[in-house]
C-alpha cells in the first residue's frame, strides 16, 4: 500500500515538475510530436505489411488455373493475359471467354461479360474515361469488386474478346481460379519489392528517433539537477524512473495515439489515395491488421519512454562545456561560412571539367563530397550572414527603438554557432530532398534513348511489332486499311542468314510515297544506302530498326510492304507507320484500331522504345516512394533541430523576462523571436533553395529524365517556411508563458 502510494507520489511529482520546468511546455509538445512520428512510422510499416499481404492473397485467389497444370479437370474458359498501357503506365488485361455462362467466375465478377464486353476495375474505368477512351475494351458492363483486385487502386480488366479478336488456338485453357502464388498478372508484378519499401521507411523512422532524442534531452540541465537531488536524498534508479515517467507519460501516450490516428482512420472509414504518389491504400487490409496498429502505438510509446529514461541517466555524466571550446566553435562557423560559396562553385564546376568517359567515378565522388560539404557549411554561411545582419539590426535600434530587435540582433551577432544549429536542419533538408529526387528519377541508357527519340520524332513515326505466327495478310490489310487517312506504311525486314555466314542487314520496303516520307529515294529494285544520313527523323528511326555493323548501311526497296502470305520466314520484323506531314499520328486511335481489328496479342503499336520508357517510368514511380517518405522525414529532422534550439531562445528570453514583467511589455518576445528564429530560418529556406538548385544543375539532364522537380522543392520549402512560422509562434508564446511565471525571487 505504502509502496504504491509512493509510486503515485513520484508520478505526480514528475508531472508537476514537467509542467513547471523551464521550457516544460515545449518539451511536452516535442515529446508528443516524437511519439506521434514514431507511431506514424510504425503504422506505416504495418500498412506496408497489410497492403502486401492483401495484395498477395487476392492476386493468388484470382490466378488462372491452367489446363497444363491440372490436365484432369474440365476447361471452364479460354484466356490470354496481356498488358496494355495508359498514361505511360502498364497494367494487366485478361482476355477471357467462358465455356458456358455457368462457368465459375473469377473473384470480383458478378457475371460473365458477353463477347465485346468488359468488366473494369474502378481505377481503370476512371482513368479510361479521363483519357477519353471509355470503350477501349468494348462495352463496359460492370466493375470488378474489391475481392477481385490486388488493391483498390489497381488497373485491371476482364475482357471477353469479339470474334474478330478471338483465336481459340492462341489462348490458354483455364480450369478454374486460385493458386498458392500470386501469378503473373496485375499490380503484384508492378509494385516495388516489399523490402525496398521497408528500407525506404527508415527515412521516416530514423528522423523520428532523432526527434525523440532531441525531445528527451530538452531542458536537460534542470532535470539533471533534479536527478542529482533525488540521488542525494537517497533515491535510486526506480525512483528516478517513476519521476521521469510521471513527467513524460501523458504527452508520450497522447502522441502515440495521435500518430496511430491516420492509419486507424483509414482502417475504420475507407480506402484513401496517398497524396503525390497516388497509391490507393486499402481500408480492409489495414482493418485486418488492427492488432499490428495497436502494437505499433504501444511500441512507439514504449520506445520514447525508454529513451527518456535511458538518456536521462546518461546525461548525468555529461560534462560542462568550456568557454574556450565555444570560442573555437564560433571560429569554425566563420571558416565554414567562408568555405561554403567556394564549395558550391567547386561542386558545380570542377567535376564537369573531368572527362566523363575516363573519370566517371571520380566525377561522382567529387560531386557527392561537394554536396555533403555544402550541406555542412551552408548553415554556417546563413549563421554568419545572420550575425552580420544582427549587428546592423542592433545598431538600427538607435533609430527605430525596437527592443526586440536589439535583444535578438545582439544575441544573433554574438552566437553564430547557435544560429547555425538552428538552421542546419532546414538547409540539410532542402539539399537532401533535391538530391534524393534526382537520384530516383534517373533513366537507364535505353530509356534515355527512347525519351530522346520521343522528343525528336514524336508520334510522326510509330512502330508496329508483329507476332508473325498469329496474323494473316488479310487481317493485317484490313486493319491497315482502317488506320487514319494518309497513314503510310514501311516494312522493316532483316536480310542475310547468319547461319550461312551472311551479315545481317536491314531492308526498308514500301511505296514511293512512304519512302519519300523518310526522305528516301524511290526507284526500281533494291538499292543500298550507306554513309551518313542527313534526315534527322530517318537517322533516329534507323538507330532503332537497323541491325548489323553501323557502317554496313541498309537497303531500300520500292514495293508492296507486305508479302502475299505472312509466314515466320516472309513476314517483316515490324511495320513503320508514318505520318504524311509534320504533325504526328493519332496514336490512341491507331492503337484502338489494332486492338479491335487484330487477334489478341498479335500486334502492338507504340513509339520507339516505349516499353523501355514504361519500365523507367515504373522505376521512377518506385523512386517516388523514397521521396514520399523522405520529405516528411527531413521535415522531422528540421523540426528536431528547430526544437533543440528553441530551448536556447527560451534561455535568451529568460533574461528579458524581468524587464518585460516590470514594464508589462510582452511584444518584445514576438519581435525577438521574429529576429532570432523566424528570420534565420526563412533565410535558411531561401539559401537552401538556391544551393539545391545550383547543386542540381550539373546533375540535370532532360535527355536522361533527370530534372529537379520544382513542385517538390517549392513544396518542401513551403513546408519548412510553415515550420519556421510554427517555431516563431511557439518560441514567442513559450517565452511569454515563461515570463508570466517569472518572479523576482524563489529562483
Amino acid at each position, binding site marked *: 500500500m505504502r509502496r504504491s502510494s509512493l509510486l503515485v507520489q513520484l508520478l505526480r511529482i514528475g508531472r508537476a515538475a514537467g509542467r513547471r520546468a523551464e521550457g516544460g511546455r515545449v518539451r511536452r509538445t516535442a515529446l508528443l510530436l516524437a511519439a506521434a512520428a514514431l507511431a506514424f512510422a510504425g503504422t506505416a510499416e504495418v500498412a506496408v505489411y497489410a497492403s502486401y499481404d492483401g495484395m498477395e492473397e487476392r492476386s493468388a485467389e484470382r490466378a488462372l488455373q491452367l489446363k497444363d497444370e491440372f490436365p484432369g479437370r474440365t476447361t471452364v474458359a479460354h484466356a490470354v493475359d496481356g498488358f496494355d498501357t495508359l498514361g505511360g503506365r502498364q497494367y494487366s488485361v485478361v482476355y477471357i471467354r467462358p465455356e458456358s455462362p455457368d462457368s465459375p467466375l473469377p473473384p470480383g465478377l458478378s457475371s460473365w461479360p458477353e463477347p465485346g464486353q468488359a468488366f473494369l476495375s474502378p481505377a481503370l474505368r476512371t482513368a479510361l474515361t479521363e483519357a477519353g477512351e471509355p470503350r477501349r475494351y468494348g462495352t463496359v458492363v460492370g466493375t470488378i469488386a474489391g475481392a477481385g483486385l490486388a488493391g483498390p487502386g489497381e488497373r485491371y480488366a476482364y475482357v471477353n474478346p469479339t470474334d474478330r479478336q478471338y483465336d481459340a488456338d492462341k489462348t490458354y485453357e483455364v480450369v478454374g481460379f486460385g493458386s498458392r502464388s500470386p501469378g503473373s498478372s496485375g499490380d503484384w508484378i508492378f509494385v516495388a519489392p516489399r523490402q525496398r519499401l521497408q528500407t525506404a521507411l527508415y527515412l521516416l523512422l530514423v528522423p523520428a528517433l532523432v526527434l525523440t532524442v532531441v525531445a528527451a534531452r530538452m531542458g536537460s540541465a534542470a532535470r539533471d539537477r533534479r536527478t542529482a537531488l533525488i540521488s542525494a536524498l537517497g533515491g535510486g534508479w526506480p525512483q528516478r524512473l517513476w519521476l521521469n515517467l510521471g513527467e513524460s507519460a501523458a504527452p508520450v501516450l497522447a502522441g502515440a495515439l495521435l500518430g496511430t490516428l491516420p492509419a486507424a482512420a483509414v482502417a475504420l472509414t475507407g480506402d484513401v489515395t496517398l497524396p503525390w504518389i497516388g497509391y490507393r491504400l486499402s481500408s480492409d487490409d489495414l482493418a485486418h491488421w488492427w492488432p499490428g496498429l495497436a502494437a505499433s502505438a504501444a511500441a512507439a510509446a514504449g520506445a520514447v519512454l525508454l529513451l527518456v529514461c535511458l538518456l536521462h541517466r546518461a546525461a548525468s555524466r555529461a560534462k560542462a562545456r568550456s568557454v574556450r571550446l565555444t570560442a573555437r566553435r564560433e571560429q569554425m562557423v566563420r571558416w565554414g561560412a567562408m568555405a561554403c560559396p567556394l564549395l558550391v562553385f567547386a561542386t558545380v564546376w570542377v567535376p564537369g571539367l573531368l572527362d566523363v568517359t575516363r573519370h566517371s567515378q571520380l566525377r561522382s565522388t567529387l560531386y557527392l563530397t561537394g554536396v555533403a560539404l555544402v550541406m555542412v557549411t551552408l548553415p554556417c554561411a546563413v549563421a554568419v550572414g545572420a550575425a552580420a545582419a544582427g549587428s546592423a539590426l*542592433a545598431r538600427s535600434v538607435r533609430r527605430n527603438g525596437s*527592443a526586440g530587435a536589439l535583444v535578438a540582433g545582439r544575441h544573433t551577432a554574438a552566437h553564430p554557432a547557435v544560429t547555425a544549429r538552428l538552421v542546419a536542419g532546414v538547409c540539410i533538408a532542402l539539399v537532401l530532398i533535391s538530391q534524393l529526387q534526382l537520384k530516383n528519377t534517373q533513366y537507364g541508357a535505353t530509356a534515355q534513348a527512347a525519351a530522346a527519340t520521343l522528343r525528336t520524332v514524336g508520334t510522326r513515326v510509330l512502330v508496329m511489332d508483329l507476332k508473325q505466327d498469329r496474323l494473316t495478310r488479310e487481317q493485317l490489310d484490313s486493319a491497315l486499311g482502317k488506320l487514319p487517312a494518309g497513314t503510310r506504311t514501311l516494312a522493316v525486314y532483316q536480310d542475310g542468314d547468319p547461319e550461312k555466314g551472311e551479315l545481317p542487314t536491314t531492308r526498308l520496303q514500301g511505296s514511293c510515297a512512304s519512302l519519300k516520307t523518310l526522305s528516301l529515294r524511290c526507284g526500281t529494285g533494291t538499292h543500298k544506302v550507306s554513309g551518313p544520313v542527313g534526315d534527322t527523323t530517318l537517322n533516329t528511326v534507323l538507330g532503332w530498326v537497323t541491325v548489323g555493323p553501323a557502317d554496313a548501311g541498309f537497303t531500300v526497296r520500292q514495293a508492296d510492304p507486305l508479302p502475299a502470305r505472312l509466314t515466320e520466314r516472309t513476314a517483316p520484323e515490324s511495320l513503320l507507320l508514318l505520318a504524311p506531314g509534320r504533325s504526328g499520328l493519332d496514336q490512341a486511335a491507331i492503337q484502338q484500331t489494332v486492338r479491335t481489328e487484330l487477334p489478341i496479342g498479335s500486334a502492338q503499336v507504340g513509339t520507339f522504345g516505349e516499353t523501355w520508357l514504361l519500365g523507367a517510368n515504373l522505376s521512377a514511380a518506385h523512386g517516388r516512394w523514397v521521396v514520399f517518405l523522405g520529405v516528411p522525414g527531413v521535415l522531422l529532422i528540421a523540426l528536431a533541430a528547430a526544437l533543440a534550439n528553441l530551448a536556447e531562445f527560451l534561455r535568451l528570453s529568460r533574461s528579458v523576462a524581468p524587464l518585460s514583467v516590470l*514594464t508589462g511589455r510582452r511584444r518584445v518576445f514576438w519581435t525577438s523571436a521574429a529576429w532570432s528564429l523566424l528570420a534565420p530560418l526563412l533565410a535558411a529556406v531561401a539559401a537552401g533553395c538556391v544551393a539545391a538548385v545550383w547543386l542540381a544543375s550539373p546533375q540535370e539532364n532532360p535527355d536522361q529524365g533527370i530534372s529537379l522537380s520544382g513542385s517538390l522543392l517549392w513544396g518542401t520549402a513551403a513546408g519548412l517556411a510553415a515550420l519556421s512560422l510554427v517555431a516563431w509562434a511557439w518560441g514567442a508564446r513559450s517565452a511569454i508563458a515563461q515570463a508570466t511565471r517569472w518572479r*523576482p525571487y524563489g529562483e
Partner: protein
Amino acid sequence: MERGHHGPSRDVSVLSVRGLTHSIGDRVLLQGVGLDVAAGESVAVTGPSGSGKSTLLGCVLGLVRPDAGGIEVAGADLTRMRGRTLERHRSRNIGVVFQFGELLPELTPAENVALAALLAGVGADEAYRRAGELLDELRVPHGQTPTAHLSGGERQRTAVARALVNEPKLLLADEPTGALDERTRDSVADLLFSVPGRWGCGLVVVTHDLTVAARADRRLDLRGGRLVTVGDEPGVTG
C-alpha cells in the same frame, strides 16, 4: 528633463503600505504590515530567510496580490489596479535592482540601460541619451564592450543605472550585493544609498547583510509577519 542631484523632498511619500496581510496556506507571512517611504529616503528591510521579505517586495511590485491592506506607490493604490494600468504605473514609477543584475550579457551597458527605457515606451534617442548620462554618472565604461566583459561591480552599477533610467519615484533592490565580494559590495552599496540623495527617489533595500542595511536612513526588521524598526538614527557608513 534634467536628471540627477535633486534635493530630497522628504515630505513627499513615494510608498505607503497600510495593514498589509498575506498568507500562503496556513502560514501567515505578512500580518498588518505598515511602511512609509518618502522621496529621498532610504529604508532597509532585513530578516531571516523565509520571513516574507521577498513577498513584501512582490506585493510592492504588484506581482503578488495581498489578502488585505493597501499599497500606494506615487500616490496611487496598486491593489486597486489591474492589467495594463498596473503595468504602466509600475513601469513609470518603480525601478528594481536584482541580486544577479539580470542583464543581457551580449548587449553593451548602454544598450542594457536603454532597453528598459525602450520597453517603457521612451523614444530611441531619448533612451540612449539617458543611458549614456546615467552610466557616465555611475562611472561605468560604456563603449562597445558587451556587458559580459564587465566586472561584477560594474555590472551591478549598470543594473542600478537601468533601474533609474525611467526616472522612478521608488527604487527597490532585492539583495543587490548578494552576489558580490566584500570590496565590490561596499562600493555598490555606497552608490545605491547615494541614489535617494542624488535622484530624489525613495529606496527600499531588501537584504540579509547588516553592514549593507546599516547604510540606510531607517532599518526595519521583518519578524513574525510584522516590520519592527531597529534604529532611529540614519546608519551611514563611509
